[in-house]
């Protein structure tokens, strides 16, 4: 019986030749990532709850401070101190304020075929490089840190065959938001979303990350794009070697197969309060919904192509006075690249506030929170009720280009409306 990419990765991590859906296996973890959203709790448990605290392999662990960086109050500072001290005491690599965790993991660690646990739901991003990344809680993380291993139930795989190319002005973000709209917020729960076909290979690594990152919003355990030469190139450029480039066998079993013609995808605006509350920009723009804040950033859409798309839209224009326009590059490297291209200057001249690389607005804490009854349009990952600030506030999700256009107009619209 053939296996899917995800099954092959689990089989490798479990040290067995074959796995099938719903089997439970003990697996060796290739890498583990924890950020400041939960690490202070992990550290507390490690210090207070374990009879024999120990770390299986410190070199496989990465700590990244990104959610509330820099600290906005003393309690956050205290949580950070705990994380920083633990990393120092145990020789764990720590990043502080250098970027959103998933972006840093992609730049510095992820390799195809790896099984990676991250104490963050968007760990699914690593499928862009053909890895199996999945989000876990801090107890799972702790178990993995102590033993170097964990258990996984082998998920079924959904296969998405992508064909052709996205049209100009349509982005990977529109594609994944369309897919989530189609299959629903629990359409892939407990499952792997596997992307393949010429349309998938036409996408850049950054675009693939947009896809895999958001698969968790359909409930997926992992999102994986079939790795190809672009993956090998990306790894080489970042000083790593791509070894395990798994592809699904021809006779692999999929729970369902979907076909998407990328040329048919249109710009999307997801309405509050759910990621599958799909709508098309061409319909939403008619409503002229006023926005109070616009955010471009996050592990989903804060990379160079996204900032570039935003800059192209706002060049020579000014942010509407009623709008707070916030931009957070996904990493320090993205910021530096954007600086060199003049993107940061263009955005700032248009009135954008450039924040340090962090999660901030996307997760609704630290910087850029929104007030009572306010409306945010964002390139972030979620639009849950109250996610970005006051419980009465509303969040719309769209591509960087749509968000940028909305910042200029002060109402939700696309670049062609300006």
């Amino acid at each position, binding site marked *: 019986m053939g296996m899917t990419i995800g099954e092959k990765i689990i089989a490798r991590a479990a040290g067995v030749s074959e796995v099938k859906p719903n089997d439970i296996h003990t697996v060796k973890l290739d890498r583990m990532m924890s950020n400041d959203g939960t690490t202070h709790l992990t550290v507390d448990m490690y210090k207070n709850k374990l009879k024999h605290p120990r770390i299986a392999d410190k070199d496989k662990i990465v700590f990244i401070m990104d959610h509330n960086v820099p600290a906005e109050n*003393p309690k956050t500072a205290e949580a950070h101190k705990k994380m920083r001290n633990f990393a120092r005491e145990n020789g764990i690599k720590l990043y502080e304020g250098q970027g959103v965790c998933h972006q840093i993991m992609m730049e510095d660690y992820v390799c195809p075929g790896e099984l990676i646990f991250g104490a963050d739901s968007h760990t699914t991003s690593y499928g862009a490089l053909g890895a199996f990344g999945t989000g876990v809680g801090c107890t799972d993380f702790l178990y993995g840190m102590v033993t170097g291993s964990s258990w996984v139930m082998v998920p079924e795989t959904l296969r998405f065959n992508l064909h052709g190319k996205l049209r100009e002005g349509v982005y990977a973000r529109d594609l994944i938001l369309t897919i989530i709209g189609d299959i629903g917020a629990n359409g892939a729960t407990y499952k792997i979303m596997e992307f393949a076909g010429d349309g998938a290979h036409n996408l850049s690594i950054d675009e693939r990350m947009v896809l895999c990152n958001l698969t968790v919003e359909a409930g997926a355990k992992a999102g994986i794009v079939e790795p190809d030469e672009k993956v090998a190139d990306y790894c080489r450029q970042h000083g790593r070697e791509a070894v395990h480039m798994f592809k699904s066998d021809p006779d692999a079993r999929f729970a369902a197969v979907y076909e998407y013609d990328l040329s048919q995808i249109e710009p999307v605006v997801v309405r509050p309060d759910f990621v599958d509350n799909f709508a098309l920009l061409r319909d939403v723009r008619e409503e002229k919904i006023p926005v109070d804040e616009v955010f471009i950033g996050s592990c989903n859409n804060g990379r160079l192509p996204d900032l570039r798309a935003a800059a192209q839209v706002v060049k020579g224009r000014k942010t509407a006075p009623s709008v707070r326009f916030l931009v957070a590059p996904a990493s320090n490297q993205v910021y530096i690249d954007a600086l060199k291209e003049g993107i940061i200057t263009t955005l700032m001249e248009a009135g954008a506030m450039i924040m340090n690389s962090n999660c901030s607005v996307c997760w609704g804490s630290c910087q850029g929170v929104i007030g009572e009854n306010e409306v945010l349009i964002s390139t972030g990952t979620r639009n849950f009720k109250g996610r970005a600030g006051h419980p009465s506030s509303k969040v719309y999700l769209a591509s960087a280009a749509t968000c940028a256009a909305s910042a200029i107009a002060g109402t939700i619209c696309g670049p062609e409306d300006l």
Partner: protein
Amino acid sequence: MGNTIIEKIIKKNTGLSEVKPGQIVTVHVDRVMIHDIFIPFVADKFEEMGFDRLWDPDKVVLIYDHLVPASAVEDIRHFKIGDAFVKKYGLTHVHRSDGICHQLMTEAGYAGPGDIVFGTDSHTTTYGCVGCFSSGIGYTEMASILGTGEMWVKVPETIKVVINGTLPANVSAKDVILRLIGDLRADGATYKALEITGSAVDAMSVASRMTISNMAVEAGAKCCLFRPDEKTCQYTGTDLSEVDWIYGDEDAQYCQLIEYQAEDLVPVCACPSQVDNIHPVSDLVGTKLDQVFIGSCTNGRLEDLAEAARILDGRQTACKLIITPASRKIYLEAIEAGYMEILARAGAIITQPGCGLCCGRAGGILTDGETVLATNNRNFLGRMGTSKVGIYLGSPATAAISAIYGEIREPL
């Protein structure tokens, strides 16, 4: 008998032929500045007082900086109230994300030589760098100015500070003002005006003078004035002939004279937790740091970022380094000059221009047992986090070199 600068400005403003220290006079206010923290209170008091229009909307500047970007849901209320005030009373000078108020007031030309300006912030003394009499007031008093355009002031005595010579390469304006505060003490200039002069001051940029006038309030000063020169005129876009009356007369009466020889000055820090607890950096070398901060209305200007970039070029920080440019304009200039790339490569966390950390709201707050070296203006207990945070204040050069080592070092 001659006059000090402050006496001349008050005379010109009031039309009085003579004023003397201690005299209470009513001045016509040329410009006021209100920031986001206090706009709700100003708006309330203004209406409570029974005013229904501003004395002159063109003379009112509203700046959002302390709460930008918002770190708490309640912060948004300040913007909403501010926006409603703007709409209701027709304000035209509004900055919602352009930087720190004191930077913008001179940068955007709202405060110029010879003007009298009040702001709802103690560091309003900053505009003395261009020869403007500017001082901080509370929101009730601001509300009354908005209605009347007038304010009573007691003509202050003036302390004259003369700094002659050439500053050593590793000594900056920040070291000068810290030393002066240490000598005057935190209340040494209370109710008084400072007048800063001498060849070392002539050689300083307007930005450096701004660092000094900004911190003068930490010695209690009402204002801190510099004689406008060609550099001032270039910066403010004024003609020297219009402002050449702004200087202290030879025979003016000063209550105190303080003189420094620039060559004698050394890099210093204000140590926890008083601004006048001044020690030479050489005595503090090796003090472990958890964080370094370069920014604020005291030291977040282009020359400060340039100095940091010069020192950090090709290096990596050993502790957290937070950099907050003072304004959008400065940030853009620093990108153009290549400083931001150097700083980012060194590992700095670069934030949106605003007050953030300096005023203790977001932007790098610390906790018990942590130590920070910062270029801003206050190291009061609890200013940047809990009361068990140790805050050292120093120059951008001291900050940058210390960030490389994660401990206090003396700049070279």
